């Protein structure tokens, strides 16, 4: 029974049916399936399949986002259950993400935030046109270990470099891994400005973030 419904949950994520995912999550809870199992063996495997299908060219951005929405809604239902059992979901890591000051492009950044969140990261999305000071203040307030900086313009990508410098000045550079992304951004640029991570798309960003937090905990 438990296995069967967990499989159905996985499939509903892959098929992009948020209502069904929520409904099945309710059913699983009513059937006394462990909330942690719903997360680990139902929802997350679905997200991994969706990510793989996206990388293979079979899935497109809307599939990705709708799966993430399904995940998010199911999580909102699971969290109070987990709390009442004194179970804690160990976040893969805490990420602060935003589009840098002077740049108001939102889509790519939100996509990455959504995908990180759906893959188990605690995400603080600061929005667009975010000043360096706000990144710094949020790192201090949350103890985040990853900072994601998005820039869609050749004129604003240089701000990524100044934020990295500002983190250094504030004495926070060793506490966080910095990821950069955006249309004009390349691996070469990331290396040049001393960023720790870079990815071309939202699925790549999840893998890169996982790699970076792996490093963080190992260090």
């Amino acid at each position: 029974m438990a296995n069967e419904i967990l499989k159905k949950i996985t499939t509903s994520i892959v098929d992009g049916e948020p209502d069904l995912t929520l409904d099945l999550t309710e059913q699983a809870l009513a059937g006394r399936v462990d909330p942690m199992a719903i997360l680990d063996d139902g929802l997350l495997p679905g997200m991994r399949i969706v990510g793989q299908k996206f990388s293979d060219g079979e899935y497109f951005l809307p599939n990705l986002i709708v799966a993430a929405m399904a995940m998010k809604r199911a999580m909102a239902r699971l969290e109070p259950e987990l709390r009442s059992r004194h179970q804690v979901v160990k976040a893969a890591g805490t990420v602060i993400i935003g589009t840098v000051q002077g740049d108001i492009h939102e889509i790519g950044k939100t996509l990455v935030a959504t995908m990180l969140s759906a893959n188990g990261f605690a995400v603080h999305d600061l929005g667009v046109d975010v000043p360096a000071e706000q990144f710094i203040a949020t790192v201090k307030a949350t103890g985040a270990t990853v900072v994601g900086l998005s820039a869609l313009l050749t004129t604003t990508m240089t701000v990524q470099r100044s934020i990295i410098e500002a983190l250094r000045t504030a004495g926070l550079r060793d506490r966080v891994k910095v990821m950069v992304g955006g249309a004009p951004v390349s691996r070469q640029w990331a290396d040049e400005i001393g960023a720790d991570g870079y990815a071309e798309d939202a699925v790549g960003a999840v893998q890169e973030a996982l790699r970076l937090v792996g490093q963080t905990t190992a260090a």
Partner: protein
Amino acid sequence: MRPTLRLLADDLVDRIVGEGFQLLMDPGVRVHNDEALDLLAGAGATVDRGNRIVRVPEKIVRRALETAPEEFYLHTFDGRPVVHYGGDDVQFDPGSAAITMLDSDTGRQRPALTGDFVNLVKLVEMLPQIDAQSTSVICADVPPEIGDLYRLYLALNFIRKPIVTGAFRKDTWWTMREMLLAMAGGQAALAERPVAVFDCCPSPPLLWSDLTCQNMIDCARHGIPAELVSMPLAGATSPVTLAAAVVQHTAECLSGVTIHQLAKAGSPIVWGGSPAAFDMREGTTPMGDVGTWLIDCAYTQVGKTLGLPTHAYLGMSDAKIVDAQCGLESAGGTVLAALAGVNMVSGAGMMDFESCQSLEKLVIDAEVIGMAKRLILGIEAREDPIALTLMRKLGHRADYLAETHTLKWFSKELYLPSAVIDRGSLDAWQKKGSKSAFERARDRARQLIASYKAVGVPADVRRELRSIATAAARKFGMNELPPLPEQALGV
């Protein structure tokens, strides 16, 4: 509303058809086939046996136009009607009968061999944008006398999609029919669910060779659809004005439909062609020329007016390598063919006029075809209200990517190309090896061919096909056919 291209004003169509009829009386058509002359004489045409000139009165032609079917279907080899010859449906098959293959490694032409054709056939099976197979290359590793039937023999071992083919001799037509019968399991089944159409080409201007005329008559009598391929060459074998070239095309096709319907009224026949605007500098037959496209689309309109299914050779290029010229010429012809509503568009993969086939070009053409098919679906409201409900819900938030509305519609509204079309970032493109369209197409062709799965032609049918083809080969000094690439058959 479906976007359509109509080049000719109604009164111009009438004048073109009117002059087509008049040409059939004076100077008449020259017919080098006795059976066709008998049929025409029997119907009341004036036949000059010595000069083989026939003058065909309009009423005989009108009768033929009435009995010729407006539409018919080609079926997959497992019996599904998938290609609709009729209305404004648009379908695509590779250009036929190339003599060379563009080598994937050297990028240069060389004679086409058995393995090349088998690869083309598998690739066509795997490309969802391509609707039908064609006997796309002539293999140089068998005697030329069996070049036509050998292609069909090879194809039949690997295909499910219907096939556009043709015979080069009178006797080989019968061998090819025998193979189709072996596949279909008999005459009744083959006539009921046609799987193949045979191209029949009049010679410009206004002439029918013995061979092509006989093929056409034999097709009619045995319920195998025939496809007229009239090919005026504007300024060389036809008048240079485009409308006059269409008049010549009309007269040639009208005479073809007449002979065909006299052989067997009601048998399916297609109004088709492969005209070109003669190149006045090089003396060649450019298929990527705008004049060529205009003649094709105009005669298609004439054929539709007369109530017949249509075909055209479009979507080809005169380039010698898969380069920018190759892309622009193929795209232009393909898009126009779709807008003109040509039922069967032959040309994918073909370049260097009509002499070379390329796996890479075929893969790139498939993307052009996908886009052209999307183009003619046009724009629909989809929902009522079109946008109000959704846009009021989101207000000024740019969150459409996360809407289920987007998930519901994006794959229906947008054409989603394969990785042949590069739309990634510069960095992503570099990371994948900074590949050209040709290299990406080569990767995709190899991947698709490798993932081709045998269609499961029963072993006894395959043996019968081979014995039919081998018997034909022995007449021309080849005792054993080249081995079939057995691996691909899963045996």
